């Protein structure tokens, strides 16, 4: 549906161009902003030169202007606060205009009357986003954890040296992390004097890494927004995870060691 509209709008471009109403509005805006802010002026000029490129975008920006109009009439003192918003808006127009001027060369639907495919338009949006705001587009900041430092103590015990640091960086109680680690490793262990975790049995750093990864997936990462900024709380015997970023919550499974077979020597009595 929207595609069709796009098409129509585009076809109307030649008629619109001579008396482009948006241009006038922009002029007006520049005049007002002249007093307020010089950088704004520059931006406005830029957008002006760019937005001539395509009718679709300029018509959209025209819509935006209509929305924006009440802002312009406000007193100057507020203008400072609004300045940022305005900037953002201009940026948007920039993006659109740029994308439009670029897409005249590089998109497959050029020179044909067919409807746009959803995938094509999606690709276009992401290209534009990636060009202009790389931090917004998809590949989000990865949460980096330091690798676990694992030492051997004697032959039968393993020491997890930076256990506390990792707990702190995940914002989790050491008890909880420890319970999970021990349950997954299927052994017993304890914290020693320097707050390191001593585990019975021989384990490689890789093993710890895998388990920590699973712990983070299950008890740290928010399912909704994938942010590790979460809080684990216990409400009448159930653990709940609440995300600080998006506010979503979920319940998480309690840690269960499950069946532990008896290894080692049995007592003579039993």
């Amino acid at each position, binding site marked *: *549906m*929207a595609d069709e*509209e796009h098409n129509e709008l585009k076809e109307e471009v030649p008629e619109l161009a001579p008396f482009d109403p948006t241009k006038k509005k922009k002029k007006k805006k520049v005049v007002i902003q002249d007093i307020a802010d010089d950088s704004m002026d520059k931006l406005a000029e830029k957008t002006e030169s760019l937005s001539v490129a395509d009718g679709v975008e300029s018509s959209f920006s025209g819509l935006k202007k209509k929305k924006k109009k009440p802002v312009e009439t406000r007193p100057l003192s507020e203008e400072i606060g609004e300045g940022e918003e305005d900037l953002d808006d201009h940026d948007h127009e920039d993006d659109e205009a740029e994308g439009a001027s670029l897409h005249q060369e590089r998109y497959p639907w050029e020179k044909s009357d067919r409807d746009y495919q959803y995938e094509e338009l999606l690709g276009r949006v992401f290209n534009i986003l990636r060009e202009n705001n790389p931090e917004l587009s998809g590949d989000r900041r990865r949460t980096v954890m330091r690798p676990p430092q694992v030492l051997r103590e004697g032959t039968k015990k393993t020491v997890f040296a930076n256990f506390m640091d990792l707990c702190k960086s995940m914002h989790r109680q050491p008890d909880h992390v420890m319970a999970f680690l021990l*349950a*997954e*490793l*299927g*052994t017993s262990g304890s914290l020693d004097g320097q707050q390191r975790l001593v585990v019975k*049995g*021989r*384990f*490689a750093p*890789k*093993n*710890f890494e*895998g*388990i920590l990864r699973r712990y983070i997936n299950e008890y740290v990462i928010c399912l909704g927004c994938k942010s590790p900024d979460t809080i684990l709380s216990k409400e009448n015997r159930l653990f709940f995870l609440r995300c600080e970023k998006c506010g979503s919550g*979920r*319940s998480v*499974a309690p840690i269960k060691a*499950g*069946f*532990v*077979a008896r*290894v*080692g020597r049995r007592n003579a009595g039993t």
Partner: protein
Amino acid sequence: MSEFDNQIPSAYDPFADANAEDSGAGTKEYVHVRIQQRNGRKSLTTVQGLKKEFSYNKILKDLKKEFCCNGTVVQDPELGQVIQLQGDQRKNVSTFLVQAGIVKKENIKIHGF
């Protein structure tokens, strides 16, 4: 306006996710496959949570034959019957159970390192 129409997916069930999770996480019937270290480089694999309808002894027999290892069915007071195999058979067990159609792949949880 068409812009806004685009943003609202029409056939989206907001509870689909939650329901799926309920059936999966809340009243789940996961099969837990665990490993336990013994002395040296020896280890044990335990399989817990298979459906009660299955004959554990028959499954065990096939597992033993397939992986060439020994094993037993252990009777646990809380968890019921648990299959115990010698050696690290986690991968083997999970592929076997999936292929035999005893458990679905998403219901198997492999624990351990």
